[in-house]
């Protein structure tokens, strides 16, 4: 848990930039930086959920019935904490897409010629006076995707796990 606290204050963006300059920009780097900075939030949610679920009666009953530790973890506790993971994942996905787009815009994300919305906006910057849509449309696509994910995340949270409302 201490390690989780240490990594979560660190800006994902800077780490990705460092990786991009050291080993060259790639989609793998962006993903690695995202994992390094975001795993801690999942640890925190799952830990909290498991701590409360394991006190419930059905876990005690499973234990009394002679289930092994691993069986209790996988069959009885895991299904009860999956909701929290799903909600957090859908809410974080939008943020990661925004970070990736910003990195690609700077040339530190997904390298050309692979298509990325962020680098498409960067290319369109040179034509804003004659053809505004070159930069505007990829940005609109990013916004639509992230907005959909955020709405989906909000909806999932309200349906599955209202106590996560503060996320």
């Amino acid at each position, binding site marked *: 848990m201490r390690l989780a606290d240490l990594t979560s204050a*660190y800006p994902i963006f800077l780490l990705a*930039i460092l990786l991009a300059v050291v080993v060259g920009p790639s989609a793998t780097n962006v993903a690695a930086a995202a994992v390094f900075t975001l795993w801690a939030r999942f640890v925190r949610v799952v830990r909290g959920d498991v701590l409360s679920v394991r006190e419930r009666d059905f876990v005690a009953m499973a234990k009394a019935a002679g289930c092994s530790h691993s069986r209790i973890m996988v069959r009885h506790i895991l299904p009860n904490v999956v909701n929290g993971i799903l909600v957090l994942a859908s809410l974080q996905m939008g943020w990661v897409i925004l970070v990736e787009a*910003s990195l690609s815009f700077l040339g530190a994300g997904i390298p050309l010629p692979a298509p990325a919305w962020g680098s498409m906006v960067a290319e369109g910057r040179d034509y804003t006076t004659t053809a505004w849509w070159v930069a505007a449309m990829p940005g609109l696509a990013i916004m639509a995707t992230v907005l959909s994910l955020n709405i989906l995340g909000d909806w999932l949270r309200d349906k599955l796990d209202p106590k996560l409302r503060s996320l």
Partner: protein
Amino acid sequence: MLRLFLGRVTEATAALFLLSAVVFAASRLTGNPLDLLLGPGATREDYARLNHALGLDRTLGIQYGIFLLNALRGDLGTSFRSGESVVAVLSQHLLASAILAAAAIGLTWLAGIPFGVWAAQHRGTPVDASVKLPSLLGQSMPSFWVGLLLIEVFAVKLGWLPSGTNQGALNVILPAFTLALFGIAGIARLLRSSLLEVLDSEFVTVARAKGMPEVTVIWKHALKNAMFPVVSFAGLYFVNVMTLSMVVEVVFAWPGLGQLTFNAILARDFPVVQGVVLVAGAIAIAVNFVVDVLYAYLDPRVRYA
């Protein structure tokens, strides 16, 4: 309180160590620095001499120690591109970034708090929805793109505000607004939900029963208690502003750390990128530390937990 303070100090120090270790490891991944410093015509003796002079023949642990000492003494190497010391390059750009961040954070609080209160007061009405929709939108738009649109509309088409960097204090308006948009949305939503919770509690009912005007109930009694989640969000929000300002500075040609990093990425100027990551990371850790301690100071429930 002292125990909590010491715990936070330990945590922040450990985070700084982790940060420096990551940066150090990255600096060793870039390949042999001797190849860069010595030209292709260098002899085996040149290599050996410089290897010894730079301490590269020692163990990795000692090299890391030297790296730490140098960093603490303010020596972060020299820029490949300009030949200046990295610390000098950083300090030239730090002020501009600080001004932009301060303007953006100020704007966020000035706009976010009234919006949040307004939405909570009118829960479930069209007013509530009209705050909720833009705040969802604000959290979904890439800031570099918002910046480009704002320049196009307010600077190019309407000509109301400058987008360059040579027209005084007005320059800061567009980039600061672009940066603040994300935070205004976040704070408004956070404050709305926490205020709604507080307004349900008994001391609010008592205050109302005493005949206090609604304005006093909300702004004096309820808001103080509803601000806790907003304050605890401030550290995370600061890191977000730092992240987003990297991109927004590039869009607005703002002469800060973001612009510097962008040019350093293009030029593969590793020492400068390393310096930015180290300094910005340390600032982020320091701000989070201050926010944590402040939060514990304000909220006895955290202090005695």
